[in-house]
């Protein structure tokens, strides 16, 4: 019986670095960008989002790793949302005391961190398959990566809108339209390009095309049986030759001669 290959053991610093920078959740996988588009309009908002998401990830991943491994996936997703909501409701007071300018500007986006796709994806892909320590490390790494992007986007947008950094409360907006989502998307595009350039230069083995559409466009797509998969009846397989003659699936003795009668 073949032994399963175990993943290489990484040191804490390497794990944090890889999780936050090399596999940055926003720049490489486009996860959880809704709060960045809507709320990261100032540096203070970016910092609030960073702290909030890190807290949510740590709590949710730790809890998932400890208690939720046996639950079916569809039920786990509800628990993630409930845990994230509880974390956000408890820590909002502390987060807003850190960044007094951010409260009104965040609107509902801070509370929408409870429904962030990043939490679900990290928990499903990692936390429910590993130990608590690794899950917490992953949560911290993903939070740092997400937070760094939120902070950068917030700082740039604040500079474009108000011409300030960390002190936009009393400033008049010069270009108020810089708070629209399209400016955040442009900034994210160039940040992602810069990130990819650094990876190509220093970590070429880690460069991956996350949104490769090869699987969609270059391989034949299997027909989806649909909602009622168990009730689908298996159809006999036939192959049509290039001259449209139907022949049964050929056996191994047949040399692939097509259409011969």
């Amino acid at each position, binding site marked *: 019986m073949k032994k399963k290959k175990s993943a290489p053991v990484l040191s804490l610093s390497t794990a944090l670095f890889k999780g936050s920078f090399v596999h940055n959740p926003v720049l490489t996988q486009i996860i959880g960008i809704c709060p960045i588009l809507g709320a990261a309009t100032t540096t203070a908002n970016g910092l609030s989002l960073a702290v909030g998401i890190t807290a949510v990830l740590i709590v949710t991943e730790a809890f998932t790793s400890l208690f939720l491994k046996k639950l079916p996936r569809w039920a786990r997703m509800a628990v993630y949302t409930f845990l994230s909501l509880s974390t956000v409701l408890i820590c909002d007071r502390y987060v807003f005391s850190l960044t007094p300018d951010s409260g009104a500007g965040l609107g509902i986006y801070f509370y929408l961190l409870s429904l962030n796709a990043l939490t679900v994806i990290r928990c499903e892909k990692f936390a429910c398959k590993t130990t608590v320590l690794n899950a917490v490390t992953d949560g911290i790494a993903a939070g740092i990566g997400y937070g760094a992007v939120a902070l950068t986007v917030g700082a740039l947008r604040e500079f474009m809108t108000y011409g300030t950094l960390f002190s936009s409360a009393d400033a008049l907006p010069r270009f108020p339209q810089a708070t629209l989502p399209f400016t955040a998307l*442009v900034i994210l595009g160039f940040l992602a390009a810069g990130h990819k350039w650094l990876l190509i230069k220093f970590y070429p083995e880690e460069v991956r095309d996350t949104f490769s559409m090869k699987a969609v466009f270059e391989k034949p797509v299997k027909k989806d049986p649909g909602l009622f998969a168990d009730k689908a009846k298996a159809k006999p397989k036939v192959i049509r030759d*290039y001259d449209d003659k139907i022949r049964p699936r050929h056996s191994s003795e047949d040399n692939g001669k*097509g259409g*011969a009668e």
Partner: protein
Amino acid sequence: MQTVKESFSFRNPIFRYNADIFTVCLALSAAGIYHWGIYALWQLLICSLTAVISEAVAFRAVLKKNTAGDLSALTTGMIIALLLPVSAPFYVGISASAFAILVAKLPFGDVRNTPFLPSAAGFCFAAMMFTDAVFTYPAAGSEFAFFGSEAFVKGATLFDMLSKGNSLSLNVFGRVSLLSGDYPGAIGTTSMLLLLGGFGYMAVRHPKRLFASAGYILAAAVFAFLFPRVNSGRLSSVISELCAGGLIFTALLLITDPVCSPRKPDRAFFYGLMGGTVCMLLRYFSKTPDAACFSILITNALWPALTGETILSKKTAEKYKKPLMKKRDALKRKAGAE
């Protein structure tokens, strides 16, 4: 590495097409300079130089090729300048041209592969960021400064009158002024005579491109006829809507772009119809004063999504057809040998 000399050659099809666009833009610029003086030339120079320098520097650094010689950047800058009012501050033109090249063109590689028209994207960016500067047009005879003028007499454009639902007669600006372009508007979008001349020139040089223009103008005219915004008759509504804003300019130079619009004339006609309909819907329901360039971007996004056509569909289809045809030929040869 491709040199400027290689791109600046009549053997290059991009250069040939852009040379014709440059000719049309030159004629429209002449009218703008005649009406607005040296400030129109200043606007044209700023936008064109920014676009050419951005392309030369960015494409050389990222793509390792010099494409500034194929005139695509130059025409992008000129089109943006012709859509701006002469009173727009210098940073508006610079940011619009830089956005057009660095955001709408560079990330997609070659000029033949841009999914969105760069000049339309650049103008839309300026329109969103500097709405007041882009949509405030000076009255004839106003004084300006080279670095943007804040105190000038604002003119009432045809567009303002239409949006307020005034009763306009066909003679609101005078027929001669309408033909020559001597009324408040952007630098290059007001002279109907030169725009019609541009259509004549394109009909001789690139007749198939004008199917998209025909669709665009037809859709706008039908919309204006069926839902007039003025009380002085449907004919007055049609002519006013067509002459207002950059509609005719967009129909001549933007909707006809060979990269973003379909190659076949019949499909190009329907593409133009879609663009014209979107433009009129935006005029009637959106808050943006002149939505012609926004209609171009929306059509660029919607057309491939709804029809399955992309600008690379011919090449992609050929790429996937070749191995299948090879396999078919091999099977036929085997069957023949047997």
